[in-house]
């Protein structure tokens, strides 16, 4: 009986040794031979309309690369006071950002519809796919190793920095100061002042239309819309500007009529030179087209299919015709411009005296100032609308993220548990085989003894 107990004990010893050996092996492997990379990760999800079509909120194409921009990374480093430990470049290198695609996206792209396909489910063909979820991982491969808390802090800063960057990048709005630097000095003539006002008005109108087209149903709390801004711009253009412009042109109001006249005459001169040369060019091109030896497409049939051999001349001929059209267009544009300047000169000649009265001038000047004020007001209202638009459509919450999680060589991680199973399994299998083999040997001996 004591012998039997010893044997049972021996089996347990073998098994326990094997388990310990497996643990040691897995530890050595996990910690020293194939250490799993230490990183923190999160996933970003784009929640705005159009993300699945690869579009940014402003209608351009979207790229997650913004998360790597230098200013953002620099700010994240400073926020975590790591400036003396890591550099922007190193941080960018340790960051891996990956879009999430369906697992078989490449097969889907490669797939095509066979004419003989009887199974309609085969028709899943994908041309383009844009991810709306991105996995962001920050590896701890810095030359100065960071703690897990530092890594987490860094990625959190990057993610929140990116949300702000996203909002700044795609926010609507115009910085009018950039334009106000122009024409701020000097005494411009009346017609010139009108030109700058029209430009300003047109810029507001165009931007409003873009934003209206993007979100036609957008209304602010006080009921204003981008279409109301457009309407106001149109009204100012057709009432204030138009009547001012007519008044100035027809009455030839100017601070310096002679100078305006010389500008118009100069423009007419320049355009006339170009016009006469263009007309010669037009004739030449026409002659070239008439003389061009076109060739024909060749068709011939073989069996039941018709094969076409395209000649070489099609492209050249098209280029010639294109050129001809371009010249004709330019000629008509120039002709219109010349007529326009001629009319202006005629107006100046016809009523050279009208604009000289100082009372009239004052009236015009105050009318211009009034129009300018209206446009400034419209501009300010547009800015308010744009801000409201941003609050509604370009929010930092359009980019959402999951909690930043730490993955590393932790002995509690699933990757370590897998590693234990992988190294324990073969060692224990061998141990069990040995135990069983010993059992066989023992039993065979025992039997021999019994027989003996």
């Amino acid at each position, binding site marked *: 009986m004591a012998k039997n107990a010893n044997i049972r004990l021996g089996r347990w010893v073998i098994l326990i040794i094997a388990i310990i050996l497996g643990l040691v092996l897995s530890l050595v492997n996990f910690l020293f031979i194939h250490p799993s990379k230490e990183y923190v990760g999160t996933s970003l999800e784009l929640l705005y309309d159009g993300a699945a079509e690869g579009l940014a909120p402003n209608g351009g194409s979207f790229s997650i690369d913004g998360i790597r921009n230098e200013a953002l990374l620099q700010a994240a480093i400073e926020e975590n006071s790591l400036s003396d430990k890591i550099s922007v470049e190193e941080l960018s290198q340790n960051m891996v950002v990956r879009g999430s695609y369906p697992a078989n996206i490449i097969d889907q792209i490669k797939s095509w519809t*066979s004419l003989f396909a009887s199974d309609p489910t085969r028709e899943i063909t994908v041309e383009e796919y844009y991810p709306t979820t991105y996995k962001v991982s920050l590896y701890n491969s810095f030359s100065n190793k960071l703690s897990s808390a530092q890594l987490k802090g860094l990625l959190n800063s990057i993610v929140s920095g990116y949300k702000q960057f996203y909002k700044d990048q795609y926010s609507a709005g115009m910085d009018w100061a950039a334009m106000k630097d122009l024409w701020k000095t000097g005494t411009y003539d009346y017609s010139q002042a009108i030109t700058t006002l029209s430009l300003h008005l047109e810029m507001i109108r165009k931007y409003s239309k873009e934003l209206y087209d993007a979100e036609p149903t957008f209304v602010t709390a006080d009921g204003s819309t981008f279409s109301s801004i457009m309407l106001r711009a149109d009204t100012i253009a057709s009432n204030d500007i138009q009547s001012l412009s007519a008044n100035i042109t027809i009455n030839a109001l100017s601070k310096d009529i002679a100078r305006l006249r010389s500008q118009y005459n100069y423009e007419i001169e320049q355009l006339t030179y170009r016009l*006469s040369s263009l007309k010669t*060019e037009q004739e030449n091109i026409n002659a070239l087209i008439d003389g061009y030896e076109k060739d024909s497409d060749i068709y011939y049939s073989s069996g039941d299919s018709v094969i076409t051999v395209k000649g070489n001349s099609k492209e050249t001929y098209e280029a010639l015709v294109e050129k001809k059209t371009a010249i004709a267009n330019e000629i008509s544009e120039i002709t219109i411009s010349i007529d326009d300047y001629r009319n202006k000169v005629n107006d100046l000649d016809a009523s050279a005296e009208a604009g000289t009265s100082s009372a009239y001038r004052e009236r015009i000047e105050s009318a211009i100032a009034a129009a300018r004020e209206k446009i400034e007001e419209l501009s300010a209202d547009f800015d308010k609308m744009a801000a409201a638009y941003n609050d509604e459509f370009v929010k930092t919450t359009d980019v959402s993220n999951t909690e930043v999680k730490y993955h590393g060589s932790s002995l509690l991680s699933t990757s370590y548990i897998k590693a234990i199973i992988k190294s324990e399994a073969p060692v224990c299998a061998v141990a069990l085989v040995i135990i069983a083999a010993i059992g066989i040997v023992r039993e065979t001996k025992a039997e021999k003894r019994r027989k003996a």
Partner: protein
Amino acid sequence: MEFNDNGQKVEVIVNHQGEVNGEISVVSVFSNMAKKKKVYLHLLAILLIIGLALPMLIAEIGTKAPDTQAAVMLRFMDIDPESGKEVNPQPVSFTSYVLQEALSNTQLSSDISLTNLESNIKIEQLLTTETRQRLEILDKEIAASATRVSQATSIKLDYENTFIISLSNGFGSPESRNKTYLSTSEIQDLLNNIIKAYNSQLYKTRSDFAFPESDLASLQYNDLDFLENLDIIKSSLASLKNYCDSNAELYPDYRSASTGMSFHDLSDIISTVNDIDISYLYSYIMYNGITLDQATLINKYNYTLRTARLDLADVNSRIEGNKKIIDEYQNQVISVIGGEEQSGNPVSITTDNYNKLVLTQTELFEKKTSLESQISDLENKIKVFGETASTTEVETVRQEYERVYNDAVSVQDLVLAQGDELLNSDTVKNSYIVSTTAQSKTVSFFSSKNIKRAVIGGVAGVIVAVCIWFIASLATEMRKKGRENG
């Protein structure tokens, strides 16, 4: 069998009655099995464990680090330099620079040489669905009748601008048995970075050239007369406007993130500056003949005029020469040799040289037009400054010039800043390719397939053990019978 803690043995007693000599009794075979159960249950355990472990071991050893694939779609067209037409772009290919860039941006556990990386990349361009369907029909036809094979050559292969990039694992020279394997995530990161570097190279080479050359900041008005300076400003603004117009066409939705302006806005601003600043001052100077130095200015204009006239004469003589050749040109006549139903009519074909000549001629016409305008303008200027030269208003003009110059510089800065912003924007960076992330077909160690194999292995082990057990017992029984009979 030791079921009990106290080691009590439980034995199965099998009845031996009714046994006939010379025949093997199943019952006694089973009794033999029961007798040897201690040995064979151990054997069963060994085979069960081996059966379970072996498939897992084979799976673990047999699993190679996986390859990876990504799809790249080119989203631009090339311009054929000769015809000026849009053509399909060059297929995707990676230069050493791109690969080196990708290698240095990827953190790899072991070093990989450029050559080894290069030889592991395979690029496949996808055929269009139509072509594949045509090929499919052809396959059927060939299968149906061997005589139609000759038609195979008449199918033109059309390709999509979609490429599947494969990067196979196992880096090293083909002869070497010791190859470097990357982990799944490493090889995927590497391929992703190759595509990223390819994209940034594409956008660098394709978008830079269009950047306008405008350097008004270094323009010193002291060096030149007013009109000359204004001419430089004019041509600078013209090139800036061209740049804005072409960008407004390429990226109609683009607005600067910092100023909110579109390229269309910028183009309108340039037009306004041209109109109310430059042209206003320019015509004033012209009509009043205002100059810092009349003689020098007229000399310069005379010199430029002479050059322009020489250029014009040259262009005119080239036009004449080309015209003669074009007029005398005859299309090349070829005969098409066709099938039975052919009429056999000869056909005329234009040659490439002829087409090139015709297009050159249109360019010369264009040059002629611009030279003629320039000459008329210069003649006019020489006439004006020869008749009425004035230096009295120089100070007023100087002040106005300063203002015009500053406006032009402001506009230039706006355009260049926005151009820079555009170049670094997602809009441009993403306009050349669309790609997927790199994917690999990996099999997890704990996959259902591997577990199924292990279970099958285990069951097989048990079956083999039971068979051996049974056969051994049968053999014992047969030996016994043999002894009894013999």
